[in-house]
């Protein structure tokens, strides 16, 4: 698994340099590539917090913590600010409920 993913990652990073050179990539392709990461990452977040229990595995503190954490990371342009804000909200809500 780690070898397959590692090789693919290397090919992504080197592919254009080694095989395509200075020819331009189609604009549509580059544009679509920019939405791949947000689509996969958000789907991954949902799958992680559901914990294999379906939609019932998603709890309110988790939802609020994720939204606050995501928004804070974006506003501060800093992943750690997002992590700390999201976790503080998550802990506080778990403690209150």
């Amino acid at each position, binding site marked *: 698994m780690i070898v397959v993913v590692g090789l693919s990652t*290397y090919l*992504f990073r080197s592919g*254009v340099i080694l095989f395509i050179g200075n020819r331009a990539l189609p604009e549509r392709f580059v*544009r679509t590539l920019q939405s791949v990461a947000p689509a996969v990452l958000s*789907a991954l977040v949902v799958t992680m*917090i559901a914990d294999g229990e379906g939609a019932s595995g998603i709890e309110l503190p*988790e939802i609020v913590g994720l939204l606050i954490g995501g928004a804070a990371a974006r506003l501060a342009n800093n992943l750690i600010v997002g992590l700390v804000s999201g976790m503080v909200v998550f802990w506080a809500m778990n403690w209150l409920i």
Partner: protein
Amino acid sequence: MKPTSKPRPQDQSSGVSLHRDPIVWGAIRDSVPLFVPAIPFGFVLGTAMVQSELPTWIAWLSSVTIFGGAAQLALVTTAGLASWWTVVATAIVINSRHIMYSAGITPRYQNQPRWFRLLGPFFMIDQVFALAALQGELDRQQFRRYSMASGLFFFTSWLLATSAGVALGGSVPDNLGLEMAIAVMFAGLTSMSMQRFSAIVAAIVGAGVSIMLLGLPNRLGLLVGAAAGVVAAFLTDELARDGE
């Protein structure tokens, strides 16, 4: 134009020695502030490696073979829970954005020696790309030294950070919510990757469809949701072009 008064390493009688090379040091100086925010990430990843269904040493080796935090985190946390091809496809798709880096930096790799064209891209993670892309004033040889210094710095530091996470991972108490911390980290990566309106559509559709498909076996809803998000973003862009 200002004359440059800085001595070049070739001018020094001691010859070119790496530890006084201003390009190499400049690269490391630029890299340190970008690496600091990655330290807790590497640490969380290290603890996730300990708790992964994969043997810890294999999970750790992903730092060497993959060298990309988000994809590694996705891989070690879903391995054993989803079918192997879902795990591999998810991690691969997360790193597909690196095609853009490869395309963006290609002009600087023209006329470079073969070893650098082969080895340089391995280190081309988000931060190294961002730094290397800014070095327009360096000549070919200087660019090579700058890229390799920054790349090797990040690679070594990343191995150290994830190793520290693995070493101390067992002692993190369960009730602190490590899984939630990982999810929040991904939520932050999601929001920071939304550079345009269609990317926001991609994230919302990706999450929405995944929620609806949570009942599917082998966490298949993850891939279908992600694919739906990309298609929705593509259609959004096409509609916006028609509207113009």
